[in-house]
């Protein structure tokens, strides 16, 4: 299956633009992150199809994933 990933803020230096990643059926967000060259510590929030997701959440073909760095303050 294929999922589309976008990185935000300083994470763009690891993953510029929008990427399509091929994964095995049944993969989850943990599997996706393992496929990307983004340091685990640098990822704070995972958004799947526009909503907050947990690391163990299963992915499906056509999913859109956005990854965010930590943000302190507002």
């Amino acid at each position, binding site marked *: 299956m294929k999922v589309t990933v976008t990185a935000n*803020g300083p*994470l763009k230096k690891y993953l510029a633009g929008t990427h399509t990643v091929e994964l095995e059926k049944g993969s989850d967000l943990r599997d996706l992150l393992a496929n990307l060259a983004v340091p685990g510590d640098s990822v704070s929030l995972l958004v799947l199809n526009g909503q907050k997701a947990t690391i163990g959440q299963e992915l499906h073909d056509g999913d859109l994933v956005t990854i965010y*760095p930590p943000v302190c*303050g507002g």
Partner: protein
Amino acid sequence: MSYQNCVLRINLAGKTSAKEPLQQQWAANYLGGKGLGIKYLYEELKPGTDPLSPGNKLMLLTGPFTGTIVPCSGKLALIAKSPATNTILDCSIGGHIASTLKYAGYDAVIIEDKAQEPSYILIDNDAVDILPAGELWGKGSHTTETLLLKTYGHDAKVLSIGPAGENLLPMACISSDYYRQAGRGGIGAVMGSKNIKAIVVKGSGSVAAANMPELINKAHHFLREDLLTDTNLWAYTDGTPMIVDLAQATGILPTNNFQSGTFDGYGSLNAEAVRKTRFGKKGCFSCALGCGNFSRMANTRVEGPEYETLALCGSNCGISDLEAIIEFNRLCDDLGLDTISAGNITAFAMELTEKGIKDFGMRFGDIREYLTVPAKLAYRDGSGAELALGVKELSKRYGGSEFAMHVKGLEFPGYEPRGSWGMGLAYATADRGACHMRSWPVASEAFGDVDPYTAEGKAQLVIGLQHYNAVKFSTILCDFWALSLETMAEMLTLTTGNETSAAQLEEIGERVVNIARLFNQREGFDRNNDTLPERIFNEYITDGATAGKNLPRGDFEKMLADYYAIRGWDTDGKVPGSKIASLSL
């Protein structure tokens, strides 16, 4: 070391000023900035003082890091009693004024009484003058700053109010560097009530650090290894507009006066949308993050808009037109208005109109009327005369208190507490009213792994964050560097020469929170004021990721009871004598 050991006291009525030594023991216990300012005001201000009377004091505080090479140390604390809430009020302003004031030779400036005519204060190192404001009075902050810089040169730094401060609005701010504000609680009205249009500072001195060579080494080390990392660089790459995306995804983006936490039009005002309008970046003194974005669209430009403005003046008003939000922001900055409160009162007026309670001629999403609000507010013109009351007082007049989104009279910042319960506790217990700058549990709840929908553990979470922010804003450092207390302690040891530990900083943070609470207690505040609007308890978010959520009153009461218990306060939320003694308040 790293203090100037000098406080400048200005009496406006007598047009006199004098230097006095810094209270050393207070500086040791409270460091500077927020903590030291609140301590000074607690000791000097008569309880029950009307915040807009000559009896209130306006204090400007630097900290031991101010003017040094420590990164992100360019903020100034401003302290007074709040006209919006009657609580203690401390604000924080960036730009370049803090270091200039310290280089002029001062740890603090205390401004007392009221000038006989509209005036401005000039502090040129040792020389202090109170001069007639003349044609400056009545002008916007931007023109005021331009004229003063023309007179005194660009090495001068300026604090100014706009017409909102002159007209004593409870949402009037103080501006500097054109687009930075000491925003909340009516600090601008305090300055206006003293007949002070501006404060101009020139400083050509320096600040000594106890161990300069090691401080320079460590500052560079922390800059590379701790500050300019993925944890903090969101501020450089995007700035606070990034939070729009995070809030939307987690259902806590204020929409239509906090009826919803998700906004259909969010894509027009998120990080990507703002980045497209960017034509420059801006930072404060000593800051490598440079969070400021200059944004330009066809007919307007501003440094900003920051998240709070995008949320409260954008989604919260049902407005998705970025150009309109930028223009609203620019108007507020020039007129001297807090965008958080201005956005809230606009949204409240929209809901009153739509519900048929009181017709202010404004509806959610209506750009035309929306853009008339800043001027109406600042000049108390037309409906602005009533809108200027703020949501608390306006709801007393017409109703709608269930959805007047404030705590103690200060309007809500941009995080929906029904989607992040710890934030509800944070708003209710913050010293100056509904504030996100005392603790921000959103980072670990909505944006992190902590369950947002439980009362368990939230008191401890909020207390830890409150102590951290309180001591950070006393050293003074900017919110956006997520450094540890250990790093803070190491730099303090090198700047002041006093051996400092993280544990000592934690205690100072607790002390600062408690002195602020004691100030409020003396003004008559207690548990009854630590509450939230009925909408949060009894209404359910209408749609999006947090659809159907409320913050049940029972859970809120549990968080609050836990909070008082852990803090060692009594069940009325009061600081007991034993705590006053143990913290040496």
